[in-house]
């Protein structure tokens, strides 16, 4: 493993930003750190970059202990959330900065700057003052600047955070292709699961300074490890239940229990694996509270046993009931019902 983080703690006074997080990043891998604001993502980047010293814990790069090594000797790149472009330097000077610091020759610097500006689609922008750039353009300059020195590890802190949706989606795609093209080892921080899943080889979901789940985007999405991850991914149909006699006794009624389940469990009813075609094998009955159109999906809020659950159905389904009407949902317990870690 290239980067290895083990049991890192960091606190500021009474605030514990990191509480023993551990994970690893392999060469050429793109790992995203996904979590709500305040979960310690940015602190973790600061610790890896060397801007912060961890209280305890190990950080190794290629089996080399990074603790105590100042940021400018780590050879990493960091793209800041606010881009942190140098306001007194133009685009070209911003991008050249890292190269200048590692004492490249002037000719190589010019070539390299042109190359990366080309890569981010700002070939003509070299002489522009950064204050005259739009948000998207600034973001590309910041990316170009962090890419230019060819960092061993590129860290990106919410790089698309403040941009509007269309721009975000376009830049997300571009970013992905650029990172792949350069086979860049990258650590990407975001609070947006779409972004995280679109870019990542592996996702680290963070909660309160710890890794709540680590896995491929598919694995995380298909099998959230715990209530926090499920909730964060927008799956809110979570209930406590008791397994008794092969049944889960839950607030919304008795549901079939998987074989391995026993005792008190946390149950997730996946909102996305559900049908209305009467095909069973199991069914839930309720009343539609509301219906909202979400593009390719349609979200239903359904009252079952006086509890409100949400379900996402393809918009292509034609016979969606209206609010107030009763509904019968077909599901397969092995797919739809998931037992979460406590």
């Amino acid at each position, binding site marked *: 493993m290239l980067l290895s983080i083990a049991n890192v703690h960091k606190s500021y006074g009474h605030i514990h930003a990191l509480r023993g997080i551990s994970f690893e990043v392999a060469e050429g891998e793109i790992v995203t750190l996904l979590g709500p604001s305040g979960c310690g993502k940015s602190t973790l980047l600061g610790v890896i970059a060397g801007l912060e010293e961890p209280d305890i814990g190990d950080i190794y790069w290629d089996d080399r202990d990074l603790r105590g090594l*100042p940021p400018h000797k780590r050879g990493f790149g960091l793209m800041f959330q606010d881009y942190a472009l140098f306001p007194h330097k133009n685009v070209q000077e911003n991008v050249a900065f890292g190269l200048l610091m590692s004492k490249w020759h002037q000719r190589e610097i010019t070539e390299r700057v042109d190359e990366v500006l080309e890569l981010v689609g700002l070939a003509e922008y070299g002489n522009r003052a950064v204050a005259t750039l739009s948000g998207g353009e600034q973001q590309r300059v910041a990316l170009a600047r962090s890419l230019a*020195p060819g960092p061993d590890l590129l860290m990106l802190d919410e790089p698309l955070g403040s941009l509007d949706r269309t721009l975000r989606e376009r830049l997300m795609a571009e970013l992905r292709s650029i990172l792949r093209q350069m086979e860049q080892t990258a650590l990407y921080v975001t609070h947006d699961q779409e972004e995280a899943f679109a870019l990542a080889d592996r996702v680290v979901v963070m909660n309160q300074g710890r890794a709540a789940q680590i896995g491929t985007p598919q694995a995380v999405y298909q099998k959230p490890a715990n209530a926090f991850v499920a909730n964060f991914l927008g799956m809110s149909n979570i209930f406590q239940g008791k397994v008794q006699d092969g049944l889960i006794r839950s607030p919304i009624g008795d549901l079939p229990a998987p074989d391995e389940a026993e005792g008190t469990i946390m149950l997730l009813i996946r909102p996305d694996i559900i049908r209305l075609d009467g095909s069973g094998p199991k069914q839930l009955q309720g009343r539609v509270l509301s219906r909202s159109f979400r593009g390719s999906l349609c979200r239903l809020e359904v009252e079952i046993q006086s509890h409100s659950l949400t379900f996402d159905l393809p918009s292509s389904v034609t016979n969606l009931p209206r609010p107030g009407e009763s509904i019968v949902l077909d599901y397969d317990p092995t797919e739809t019902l998931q037992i979460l870690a406590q």
Partner: protein
Amino acid sequence: MQNKRSVTVLLWCAPLIFLAIFYFYPLGSILKLSLARSEAGALAPFVEAITSPSVHRVLGFTIWQAFLSTILTLLLGLPGAYLLARFDFRGKTLLRALTGVPFVMPTLVVAASFNALLGPHGWINVGLMEVFNLPEPPIQFLNSLPAILVAHVFYNTTIVLRMVGDFWSHLDPRLGKAAQVLGANRWQVLKNVTIPLLTPVITAAALLVFIFDFTSFGVILILGGPHFATLEVEIFYQTISLFNLPLAAVLSVLQLGCTLVMTILYTRLSAKTSRPISLQSSRHTQGRLLTWQQRIFAFGVIALLLIILITPLLALAGRSVTSFGVIDTREGSLAPGLTLAFYRELSINRQESLFYAPPTTAIGISLTYAAATVVLALILGLPAAWALAQDRTSRLNRVLDPLLMLPLGTSAVTLGLGFIIALAHPPLDLRTSPLLVPIAHTLVAFPFVVRSLTPALQSIQPSLRHAAAVLGASPRQVLRHIDLPLVGRALLVAATFAFTISIGEFGATSLLSRPEYPTVPMAIYRLLSRPGVLNYGQALALSTILMVFAISGMLAIERFRIADVGEF
């Protein structure tokens, strides 16, 4: 946290040592010695001052004229601040620069300017006498309360323009729009949104103006005339004419006390109004003059500013190139007899005097003192500003910040005499050293330097330093490539402030300078105090040259201002 605090303490060391040696020690020495001279004990002069009706009268007048002057300054300054904050128009930079010029002109020159414009023989009176065929000059301006008030407005309007204008230009106009959408009309927006947001900065500006008016000396003495005395004038009078040092000391303490209260209030308020700069904000907050109402408003404000702040200086410059013989009204002639005789005369050493300084030399000496002041003020101001930028609200900074401004409220006479008795022993025997002049100038320039630098230092986002570090810059390289260039322009602004203040300073210089090194204001004073029109004309010519320097300095400040950094 502990670490940050010790950094702050360390940064304060040099500026505080300087203030201790060159301000508090001399001031303390002269006050102690003065009170010790009281035959009836050190308390007696305090009792004398408290019970003396003339001290009451002086204190009352000092406060009253400062109050009136401050109100008038705000009346002119606030519309001007609005204009500069919200509109973009051609010549704005020049306007800002011109309005800053009065601030750095020595009182002697200002008095000569007002005399050239409004004196019995000034352009206006001569013109009116000519047009209406009057036997006497109709306007009696010199030696009156209006002269004091107008001169104070002349000096201090730029403070309001700069402090309030800069802050206002960063107020998001969308706040007002939001209020309008919520149903507020223009006046309600002004009353409920704009004014509450501006109150701290307006109060801070008003306080600073009040401090300057409160400690006014030359304006009161020369333009106000014998019927008016402020505390500062009374201190001068008690010290020099009567040698009543104990009473002078008590008055100095009184003035310092008042100044301290005001500087504490001022620094509290200005800490509240400081904000990180935003590079694009003025693009969003300023518009062109579109409607005719806006144009009329702009025209009116600009005209008023130019009339009050610039015409006296123009009158002086005009007088310096006009032959005195031909504008004598008794001969009924107003023909402008232009002459450069006074400028030519400046470079002739008619008396072969040892202390004669051709204008180039006086300018050279002024520039050398100014350069020394710049270096000293920056060396001391930078760490102090850095410390303040760490955390404006820390207890240490809250105590020290107002102290930096105290020299502004200290009588030059008192401090000058303080230097004589305090700096008498090696290794500090500087009494005859030309170094004393830049040291005294630094005391005056110091608060301006600190206040120009602090916001710039505060505005450097830590992420910029981090970004540079991650890109491979060592701490020293970060300082060189990020901090210095970013503060660089603020440094230039601060330097220019120190420079122009030093160029125009007269009060302290006249007490400390060496005759073979006359500064430009000193040379003007020498010429002005001699009979003979050629001497007077030369004084005007040299004043005009000084004015040109002040304008260049102010234009340089405008040039380097980065998105309105600086608190005044």
